[in-house]
Structures are given as C-alpha cells and as structure tokens.
C-alpha cells in the first residue's frame, strides 16, 4: 500500500486513508490531549482540548481526517496555553472540588490539568447549582462534575443498547439528562456493569461502595501522566480494531 504521511511538529507520521489526525498520532505514539475522545466510540469533537493547527488553521484532531500535505502543530506553547485555558474553563463551569471527590487521582480532567501545567483556575467560578441523583442502588450521578463529553451517552447507545443518557439544552444550558419519566437513574434499566458506567472521565458517574478503594499514592495519575495512560489505552484499542 502506498505510504501516506502527515507531519506533526516536524515529525513524519504515517496514516491510513480514513484515519483521523488523532488516530494517526496515537498510532505513532504522539499524545494529543483530549477528554471527550475515546477511540472505543465515535468521535464527538466537543471539548476542543485536542485542537491542533493544521496548515495554520485550528482543527479538532479527533474529528479531522488526516490528509496529504498536512503540516500539523501539536505540542507548542501557544496550543498548550489554549488547552490550559480550556481546562480552566471546564473547572470553573462545574463544581470540581477535588479533595471532596472519590474520583480524585483517577480523574482525567484533573490529570489533563496536571499535564497542561494548570496551577490555578484563573477565571471567576460559576458555582452552578446542579442535581445529584443518588436514586440508583449501585450508581451515583453527580452532575456537579459532568463536563458534557457525551461518552456515557455514546456508550449507553452504541455499546449497551440502552439509551439511558442524553444531552438537553444548548450552550451553557447543555446538561446531561436521564431517559426515564421521572428523570431518575433508578427508573432506567441502567446497571453498574454497563459500559456507560465505566467511561466517565470525571467523577460524574460513580459506582457506589467503591470510593477511595485505592489509597493516595497508588492511584493512576499519582505516578503516570495522562499522556502515558492515554496512549497506552488508545493504542491498545486501535491495535484491537486493526487486528
């Protein structure tokens, strides 16, 4: 097959027609920060954390197809500053009080914050009032931490075949909703074993009676950057796909 290449930060990266920039980068061992993207699901392109410059224009690496002649900038001070700003905005738009969250240490939003050098949140906090749904016997839904990545929506729809979750509203009013007449999780056929219960990158969907199971110092991001963890996961998924 004819070899196709794009250039990422000056490095020639091979790609197959039909691959996105993110997929080509991942296969080549190049980490592009992302939150709403998970190669197990169809790209969503909502968080914009994976924004790269393609021939000088901004594009989401998770949705942009790789193509001949693309000169891509990824790991630059400007793009990383933008990613820091996006991460800060995600923090101030929700109620991300890390010391009070079970997901801490295993949270991808937090880990992206570490990765992009976020030491403060910079912007005024919204402190929104959001719903906590503890009605389900095995799963807790705390929308304070939802970043509207739609991973649970995609997992429930595409893998579990249940359509438990959806997004409602637009812009700042966009929010995760539960597909039941009461709007409560207990009135759905959701189960803790569902894929949708496992994919939340933050602490919005938590399995009950599992909190703080792994002690501080032994959690995922205590010793590994999100770059390392993410590449390992995403490469394994892509490898499985191609195998």
């Amino acid at each position, binding site marked *: 097959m004819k070899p196709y290449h794009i250039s990422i930060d000056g490095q020639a990266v091979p790609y197959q027609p039909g691959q996105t920039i993110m997929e080509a980068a991942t296969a080549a061992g190049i980490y592009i920060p992302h939150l709403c993207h998970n190669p197990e699901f169809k790209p969503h392109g909502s968080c914009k954390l994976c924004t790269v410059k393609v021939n000088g224009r901004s594009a989401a690496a998770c949705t942009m197809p790789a193509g001949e002649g693309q000169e891509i900038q990824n790991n630059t001070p400007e793009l990383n500053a933008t990613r820091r700003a996006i991460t800060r905005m995600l*923090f*101030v738009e929700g*109620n*991300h*009080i*890390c*010391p*009070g*969250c079970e997901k*801490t*240490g295993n949270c991808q939003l*937090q880990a992206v*914050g*570490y990765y992009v050098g976020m*030491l*403060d*949140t*910079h912007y*005024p*906090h919204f*402190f*929104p*009032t*959001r719903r906590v749904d503890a009605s389900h016997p095995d799963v807790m839904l705390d929308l*304070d931490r939802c970043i509207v990545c739609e991973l649970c929506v995609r997992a429930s729809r595409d893998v579990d075949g249940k359509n438990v979750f959806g997004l409602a509203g637009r812009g700042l009013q966009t929010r995760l909703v539960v597909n039941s007449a009461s709007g409560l999780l207990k009135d759905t056929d959701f189960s803790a074993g569902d894929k949708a219960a496992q994919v939340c990158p933050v602490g919005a969907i938590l399995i009950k009676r599992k909190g703080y199971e792994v002690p*501080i110092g032994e959690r995922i991001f205590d*010793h590994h*950057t999100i770059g390392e963890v993410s590449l390992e996961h995403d490469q394994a998924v892509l490898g499985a796909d191609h195998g």
Partner: protein
Amino acid sequence: MANKLKVATTSLAGCFGCHMSLLDIDERLLDLCEVAEFDRSPLTDIKHCSETVDIGLIEGGLCNAENVHTLREFRKHCRILVGVGACALNGGIPALRNHIPLQECLEEAYLHGVGVEDAQVPNDPELPLLLSKVHPIHEVVKVDYFLPGCPPSADVFWKFLTDVAAGKEPELPYELVHYD
C-alpha cells in the same frame, strides 16, 4: 544573612491544614531560617504585616467580610502573593456550601442540627458578615503563584521557598502537583 526573605502567612476560610503542611518540612525549617524569617503569621502570633513582605503565603478561601479585608491587607504588603491549597485556589471544601442558600446553611447548623440546644442563629455585631458564597482568592486580588493541593505537601513548600530564595523561577515537578 543580611537580607533574609520575609515570609508572612495567614489563613482565611480554611482548616489550617496548609500551615500544618508547612511545618511538616520538619528539620529543613532550620535550613529555611538561614535564608528566610517569618513575619506576620499564626506561627509568630504577629498580627499585621511589616510594610513590605517578600512572600505572603495565604491559605483558605473567602467566606466572610473579614476574609476579604485580610486578603486585601495581605496583598498590599506582600511583594509575592502565593495562594496555598485548594480552598484558596477554588474555594475547596467550604465551597461545597455554595449551592445551598446561606439562610438554609445557618438554619441547619444552628437551629435544626442534631443535638442543638437553645437554638439561635449567632447574631453578634462582632461576627464578620458571611458572604453568600465562598470564593477563591483570585476573584478579589491578583495572585502571583498558586501551590495546589489539600494541603500542598511539605515538599511543595520547600521547593517553592528554596527556589525563590535561590532567585529562581519557582517550578513544581509533576510528582508534587496535586489538586487533592
């Protein structure tokens, strides 16, 4: 040393855990005292800053009018103001009350709480007025550096202070940066 760094510390709406973590640098405090001296701090019991302080370490967020006053005074006197810990950074645990109306918080604590006797909401004029929400400090003053963590570890304080004392731009390695 002729020109030691003057370091002031204070606590706003926090638990003093960050101060405990500062003390946790243990015997390295002796090394630190070679290059730095404490100014205003609960550790020295000095109540107000000298005219000019080199580094002001401030833990806690803003939950009442006195916190805002203290923060502004601190900012005025500190050449480098450092927000220390999750509460200073984003309100932290005290900010968990932000989605509950203040009146409800007070009533739950002082009127309807378990074991409350002689129920009454405190109303002494000497008590500082509560803010309706807890806020991080960067929403009120310019903050030069942040040391995240709940609390930041002793090594974070040590790295930051020794970097400044050495005239270097303070930098925290990955292992030391935690939001929890």
